[in-house]
């Protein structure tokens, strides 16, 4: 499964990727830029958007610099609270990415061990895990997340929802989608477990735990990485949708979805940038992650290999 051994010339591989899949190369660069900018937000953002004391209502709804009536100190303009939009977007992207990655980490932590177990042990355990995965998947994540957060909000009020928004979003999005990891891990484990090297390891006296952890897991990583990529896009999208509905990040600590929602009310009064600019960033982020995931999947799909 090691790319380097089959193709020793890594520079050639890179060139081949760029020529054959220019979209993937662009997506990788775009994702890299967004991710780095988001991670460095505290260093590169002109202001701290969470510091409510520094906001001035007189600065509210200023347009971006290239539009008439702007203030040169705000490159992308300001939102309804007078917050610098560029800073809000940088910090918001950070929150969106954080929620996405943490939620997928939870999914993988639950799903991968269950899938390994189901695929390796088989029989009744396999049945139970597969049935549970089917049931969980038939209940749509987004719907379950909406219901869970709605009940939380109805029970404890919008105030508590705002305070615990990040952990709540991570848990709600994280718990619901483990079956994707479990199914992939299970199918790949079944294939690997039948191979000679596993039988050889067993003949040499390796424990089951050792075989699964040291031999099978490293060999099923590539399909799992594909799943993780698409799941991150899904989790970012789910977070944005929940925040747009007012069930996610609060206005005081906005994610991209919150910014889009808060700008939507003002859109028809002319302040389009508060919605459109975070919207474009969100789409850029999602498209790049999805294109990367698709490229990885196609590269691993035997049905699409040239005959």
């Amino acid at each position: 499964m090691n790319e380097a051994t089959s193709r020793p010339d890594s520079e050639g591989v890179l060139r081949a990727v760029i020529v054959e899949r220019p979209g993937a190369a662009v997506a990788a660069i775009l994702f890299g830029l967004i991710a780095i900018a988001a991670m460095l937000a505290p260093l590169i953002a002109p202001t701290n958007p969470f510091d409510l004391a520094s906001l001035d209502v007189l600065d509210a709804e200023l347009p971006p610099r290239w539009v008439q009536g702007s203030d040169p100190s705000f490159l992308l303009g300001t939102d309804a609270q007078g917050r610098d939009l560029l800073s809000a977007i940088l910090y918001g992207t950070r929150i969106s990415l954080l929620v996405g990655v943490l939620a997928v980490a939870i999914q993988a932590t639950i799903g991968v061990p269950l899938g390994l177990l189901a695929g390796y042990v088989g029989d009744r355990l396999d049945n139970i895990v597969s049935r549970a995965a089917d049931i969980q998947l038939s209940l749509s994540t987004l719907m379950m997340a909406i219901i869970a957060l709605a009940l939380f909000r109805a029970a404890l009020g919008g105030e508590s929802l705002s305070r615990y928004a990040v952990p709540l979003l991570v848990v709600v999005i994280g718990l619901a989608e483990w079956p994707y990891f479990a199914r992939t891990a299970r199918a790949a484990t079944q294939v690997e477990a039948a191979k000679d090297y596993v039988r050889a390891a067993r003949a040499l006296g390796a424990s089951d735990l050792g075989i699964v952890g040291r031999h099978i897991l490293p060999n099923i990583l590539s399909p799992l990485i594909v799943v993780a990529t698409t799941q991150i896009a899904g989790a970012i999208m789910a977070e944005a949708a929940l925040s747009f509905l007012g069930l996610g990040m609060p206005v005081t600590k906005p994610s991209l979805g919150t910014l889009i929602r808060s700008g939507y009310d003002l859109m028809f009064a002319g302040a389009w940038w508060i919605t459109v600019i975070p919207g474009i960033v969100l789409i850029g982020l999602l498209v790049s992650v999805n294109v990367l995931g698709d490229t990885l999947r196609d590269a691993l799909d035997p049905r699409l290999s040239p005959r």
Partner: protein
Amino acid sequence: MSSTRALAAGLAFLARRLTQALLVMLAVLVIAFAVRTSLGDPLREIVGEAVPEAEREQLRHELGLDAPWPVQLARYIGGALHGDLGTSTIYKKPTLEVVPAKFPASFELVLGASLIVLLLSLPAGVYCAVRPRALGARLILGLSVLGISIPVFLTGIFLITIFAVWLGWLPAFGRGETVHLGGWETGLLTLSGLRHLILPALTLSSIMLPLFIRLVRGAMLDELGHDYVRTARAKGAAPLRVWLGHALRNALLPLVAVGGLQVGTLIAYTLLTETVFQWPGMGFLFLEAVTRADIPLITTYLVFVGLLFVITNTIVDILSLMLDPRITLEGTR
């Protein structure tokens, strides 16, 4: 003889499915009851805050609200069977009048979007499967990645900006004029209603379309790899006939099964679309209930969504049974 056996098997299947559906609905009602008793105070819904505590105690006893929870649960389920799931605190009406009244709006939105999805995803998906390396197929798949990556609420916002704000061609909010047909409030019979439907239906279809194009493509790719396709081609059947008559027919089975699993997702996306377009459907109502903590309305919505879910899944199961050629063959032989 064998046809009666097939009929019996079909009836047994139907009975099993219906029992399962009833059990799921029972579970949904138990959850709704749990939410209702832990989050809401039925007494406050009836008398409000102003009544003194001693009188409350008295009322609580008279209404049986101090009974042990199994008794109350039984009463709740009994009420549900008689069409009573409580009274909405916002609308001051039985929730089972409020929620179903919003159903036609959501249903017509989903219907419009499904038509668009069906008409476009089948040809596009088949084309992408039979010509995987053609420029057109790559273009469709590229656009479908874009479609999957644009959150449904942003599609809605962009469509409103272009067609309602800039061009002024189509209305942006609400359902327009509606007509009452019996108990069903439809927007499909007036020009204004149809014009109001276009943008929301396009928005909702934009998120389901890429998903279904990929589903059709995946299912077709699976079928095209089978021997019977090669056999049909070898004996001289026209390619179009093999693709549509043989492969697509068999691809429909996994398509219906997987597509049926998307009901929950569809309901969630409908909720988002309704929020963007202020479409007066069930999802819009649910969010209003959440913001104003109308617990009976929230739980009734949950029960209703559970019911929709169970009904569609049962229909999908029966459809799968009907589409499965192995079972049909057994019945006709």
